[in-house]
């Protein structure tokens, strides 16, 4: 994928993704994450799928899995970098606040640097996910490779 020079500049913000994590989608993600787990062990998803179970463990409700919204960030960066994400992408995120069923998550990414490395032009970004209250739930950094046209 070739880029226009104006897209590859410090401060450029990628188009954000805003998405509600419904219980239905959490159930689907839990079913996926347990696809390679022996059937007798497929109950831990209860933290993510059973509200009463989650409350019995002291949680305010069912929790979204961190990889669920990590996937949103990867989706943004796949759309932006294309091949330079699939071959050469790097993503590191710290999860700082719980995400509950029904929360709406907005994912953002802003370019913080561009440098040449052995693989080509590596573009670095700050990435984050915030909830509908504007609270950050996850923060981190990412980078991918670009060819500037």
């Amino acid at each position, binding site marked *: 994928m070739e880029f226009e020079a104006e897209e590859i500049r410090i401060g450029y913000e990628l188009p954000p993704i805003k*998405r509600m994590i419904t219980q239905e*989608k959490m159930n*689907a*993600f839990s*079913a*996926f*994450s*347990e*696809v*390679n*787990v*022996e059937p*007798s*062990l497929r*109950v*831990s998803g209860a*933290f993510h799928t059973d509200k009463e179970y989650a409350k019995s*463990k*002291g*949680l305010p409700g069912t929790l979204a*899995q*961190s*990889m*669920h919204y*990590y*996937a*949103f960030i*990867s*989706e943004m960066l*796949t*759309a932006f970098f*294309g*091949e330079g*994400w*699939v*071959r*050469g*992408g*790097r*993503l*590191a*995120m*710290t*999860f700082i606040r719980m995400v509950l069923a029904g929360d709406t998550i907005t994912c953002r990414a802003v370019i913080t640097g561009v440098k040449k490395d052995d693989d080509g032009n590596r573009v670095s970004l700050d990435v984050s996910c915030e909830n509908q209250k504007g609270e950050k739930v996850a923060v981190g950094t990412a980078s991918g490779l670009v060819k500037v046209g």
Partner: protein
Amino acid sequence: MVKEAKPEDYNLGDEFGPLEYRITEGLVKMFSDAVEDHNPWYFENSPFGGPIAPVIILAEAYFSLISAKLGIMSGYHTKQEAEFINPIMVGKKVIVTGKIVDKYEKRGRQYFVLEYRCVDEDGLELTRYRYTGSPYF
């Protein structure tokens, strides 16, 4: 009674897997529907010579790796790092292995770090991951 992984079960140097995943169209659709990502590269064609899976499709494999060996994994996920090296082609078999490379205590809470990697049936390295979490909620 279902076995649950206990904090004392996580030992530095412990190895996990191999786990095998066949990256089928159905598996990709299951993931894509859950996260609402329907990039045409996953269902039609891609610049890599056929449909690929989302790069992070196996990020959640830490759960399967640990649960298969220690019992149900629960706890608090604090950090996730990933490096995407090669595309995960639909139709390929992927083998995932992992190892606990660090274990530490911070503010009275125990943490461990699991590194795991995905390699396809031809030995091509696809993805490297590093999970950090606490076995306590």
